[in-house]
């Protein structure tokens, strides 16, 4: 049975490290802005190609 205690300690260490990562991200500003990244990810990729297409159309 005592092995459970060992497992618990390991699980606490793991989940504790997640908490630390969360804090680090909070400090880095991950939770400061929810709107822009959602928009940005749609823009970045096709940015170059579309610009070129448009540019060509307009001569």
């Amino acid at each position, binding site marked *: *049975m*005592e092995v*459970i*205690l060992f497992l*618990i300690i390991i699980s*606490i260490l793991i*989940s*504790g490290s997640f*908490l630390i990562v*969360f*804090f680090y991200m*909070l400090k880095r500003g991950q*939770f*400061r*802005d*929810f*709107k*822009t990244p959602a*928009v*940005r990810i*749609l*823009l970045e990729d096709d*940015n170059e190609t*579309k*610009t*070129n297409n*448009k*540019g060509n159309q*307009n001569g």
Partner: protein
Amino acid sequence: MSKKQCYHCNEVCINEITHDNKSFCCLGCKTVYQILHDNQMDFYYSIENNPGIRAHNAPENLIYLDDPVHIQPFILYEDDRIVRASFTIPSIHCAACVWLLENMFKLNNNLLNLEVNLGERSFSFSYIKDQISFREIVELLIKIGYSPSLNDHHKGDSQKKIQTAYIAKLAVAGFCFGNIMLFSFPAYFGIDKNSFMGQSFDWLNIIFSIPILLYCSIPFYTDALVSIRTKQMSLNIPIFLGIIALAIQTFWEIFTQTGHGYADSLAGLIFFLLLGRWIQNRSIDYLNFERDYKSFFPIWVEKYELDYLTTHVSIQELEKGDHYKVKAQCIIPVDSILKSKKALIDYSFVSGEAHPVAIKEGQKIFAGGRQLGSSIELLVDRNLSSSYLSRIWDQMNKTVTTQQTILNFMSKYFTLSVIIISLLAGFSWYLIAPSKVVMIVVSVLIVACPCALAISFPFTSNFACLELRRRGLFINCYDKIEELSNVNHIIFDKTGTILTKDSLPVENFPNGLSFMQQRLIASVVYESEHPLSQSIFLAMKQDNLLSINSYHELPGHGIHAKAGDYDIKLGKASFLGIKDDSSDLNSAVHININGHYLGYFEFETTLRPGLKELFNSLQNYKLHIISGDHAGDDDILEKLSPEHLIRKYNMKPDEKANYIEKIKHTDKNAKILMIGDGLNDGPAFMASDFSIAICNQKNQYFPSSDAMLEANSFHEINQFLLFAKRAMKLVKLNFFISFVYNFFGLSFACLGLLSPLISAIFMPVSSLTVIFISQFGIFLLSKQSLRNLKFMNNELHFKVKNLKNNVFLNKVL
């Protein structure tokens, strides 16, 4: 006239400019398009349709930005080579904005690390110091239509920090709560508390309680201290007592190995309380639209040092006796004495009075007036903080009274009864079994913890505010909804609120107007910035304009212009030297061409649609109309309104406030809702119990009101009021449920039957019931009482639409 929409900004093109087979409404928009097109940035237009902001290229002198002192508030970081700065750009509103601003390096490669925050409308960037100056960046942004707001200095920052701190605490509380619940299960299933495993789990719970007590609970300790210091019986005190009782009991039981303690209840309590706090703060932070009156002022003025030399000083630095200059169309920032010969001041900003006032040399001008003519020189009479406008504002902000809200009322009695019950229970048990007294008192305090009570009001009113917001009523502080539900007097401001002016003019020309005359009038009024001129220009529907040879405008009176062989005079009757026959209430523009009087344009006053129905549906309320304007439209209102409508005219801002005080004085139960539209209603807004500012295209001043109402939803006010009333009933229902829970909990505790298991089930279940009821109840209520109201399709869009006007306004000022 073609009704094409501008390719850039989506506004109807009145005077269309065609370029690249695309239509533009003005030169500014075309210029932005060209800049972007030349830099291969057309992608901007493919992200969203017509995403642009109309660029008003008013020539603005930004030289003061070269002074490091003035840009200091925006600098985040600076070294020898690179500067990082950030400011708010109110016109950021869509994906295209994000893309454009983040690709600004294509316009100028000295810009680095451009980053937009769409939610906060902020823009941060780095630049190479030697290559480009802060001023040049601002000028570039203004050129493409994104004027930064240089008056705000990151007001939201502190709010943001508080919120981040709550997230961190919430994370820790959640982490500990989850773990403690797991380690408590063995105890629920009857593990032997003296076995090694049983003790290990108890000690793990102790370890996880420590961050909860020392870190997550800090806000509750400080709040309880504040309550004690201000001698208020708020809910913070029983919360504090509950936390302490739980902690002591838990530690005692585990140290003495007499039980498993209440660590699970403690963690659950803190977690749910923090959740409630976080939600209520989130809604406040979302609605940070209140603007300081100073943001309408010029940031700096030109001050004369030795009569000929000028320096730029910020308005805060102006001292009595300083000699300075105010440009045309600028707001006078401090009370001053006129040094120039003549000035024409528009006080509509402060008093709501539509007609400008002429001031002669040596006379006093109050802060907040806008100079309509050419630039003037002034002597400072009072500095910024003691000026008239500042005093009105301060007065408004000082009168924050502690309101007797339902929550305060409840918590006072709740706190008192909890303390009395615990003492009574303790005393009774002292007679029965003295050894159990401490245990009983502690368990009463534990179970009476007002978790459900504390979160029922914030949750319910938050959900209610959200529903209202979706339908066009933006309440800026969730707990204000209670005030709204208690309203029994409604006061409307007249001009701008229930009457709208500036629609298209009615033509009153006995012989009609020939095509040539229309063209001539259009050409002349096109030159003028006056709103009436703009409306006439729209009505004339001419796009082929004549060139004007001579043009002279006497602001507020009329225009005298010459085009070819024509000599045209238009404006007020007095300007043309004729008798005024038109009715008093409507504005008229008279026309005289080559000495022949042709007739006049009349601007009718229109009532806001649905007003009659609204007034009829508000039979249960006392209605008042107060106005800073003259009594011109009284007969219209009399016809429309029910008998109990009280109408007052010619009221100054402070008289409006006094009027409200008078109602309160005569009717002790009066709860007053003030609906207005301008800064001139500001003092009245503060004096009233709840204030709503109407927002539409024409109205750009946001006074410090409790709520903003989209003008299109104006006639639905009765439904909003009804909804608020029902929402408050829901809050009361929640209070009742919370009391039922508490009753049973207290019975258990008083009988000495409270076990950790009961407590651990009991506390989260009561919180969750309350959250569920408020969410579900508000959902049903909104379906029922707000079903006629259209959803605002996009609230962000609504805000931007209004903010766009603000941007425009700042530029004009």
